[in-house]
């Protein structure tokens, strides 16, 4: 019975999509004739298919398509702008940081322990940033499941 039901369901889907061969059509029709339950299943799923066939996704207004590529082009351009801003900011920050450290070390008015504390603060912060960046990069390169939707 279970095999027959499985077979019926396979044929049912093929029939819905007009993919039955002549032999399969004969087999399907004889299965339909043999059981009221099969006939009910067929009528019910056929009705759903007829409804979904009449459904149409609404077309957006034409001007959406006119502006579609322009939207992508602008976003691509802005992406390049952000990359340039980021590179510039990194260079300025590194140079500024270097100059700041230099001035702290060379300042004779600052006590040695204050100089050491400032340097430790900068070194600690840099180590922390490098560690986080390395961890992120490592996960990105080695995570086998990054493409899988969890």
């Amino acid at each position, binding site marked *: 019975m279970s095999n027959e039901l499985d077979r019926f*369901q396979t044929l049912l889907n093929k029939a819905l999509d007009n993919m039955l061969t002549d032999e399969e059509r004969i087999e399907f029709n004889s299965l339909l004739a043999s059981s009221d339950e099969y006939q009910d299943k067929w009528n019910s799923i056929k009705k*759903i298919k007829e*409804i979904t066939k009449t459904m*149409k*996704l*609404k077309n957006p207004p034409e001007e959406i*398509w006119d502006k579609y590529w322009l939207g992508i082009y602008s976003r691509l351009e802005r992406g390049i702008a952000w990359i340039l801003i980021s590179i510039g900011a990194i260079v300025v920050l590194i140079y500024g940081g270097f100059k700041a450290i230099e001035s702290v070390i060379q300042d004779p008015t600052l006590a040695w322990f204050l100089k050491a504390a400032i340097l430790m603060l900068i070194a600690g912060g840099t180590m922390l940033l490098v560690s986080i960046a390395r961890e992120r990069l490592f996960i990105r390169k080695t995570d086998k499941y990054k493409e899988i939707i969890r």
Partner: protein
Amino acid sequence: MIEPERDAEFIEKAQKGNKNAYGEIVKLYMKRAYFSALSIVGSHDDALDLSQDAFIRAYRSIKKFDTTKSFYTWFYKILRNLCLNHLRNKSNRASNFSEILDDFENIKDENQNTDKMIEQNETKKIVWQAIWKLTPEDREIITARDILNTSYEEIADLLQVPTGTVMSRLHYARKRLQKIIEELQ
């Protein structure tokens, strides 16, 4: 000219940094991408945004694309992941329903009487309500086959699974849809 050949010409130019050539590819596939996204996320604004986002991501990786393969199949993987991630991250999923009803055209048949048309539209609403209650994966396959009229072979190509798997997934998705409709009626 067959699809990969036609696309390859533009893609090779895009791989060399020609944005206008990529624009031609976008214009060829934008409607298909939009409707694919719409059938998964069910909102016009989100579908527009996600399909454009997918084209941007595809452009950034265009150098990795093998021009002998189908562009859309490769692109669809990016689009699909974006749409599914978007649904996963969206906190209020139920709000989509009213948006989706607006996304449907009511088919008006002048030969039909008003009562029958109202009844049909009501049934249509129930069916769409049920489609939206399915998982995104089930909804994707049902809308691709039964609403967007995509062939089994094309779905298999897009989802990168054998045709037999498409048939079996469709079968189970239809069964689940039928069950939800029965519960709603």
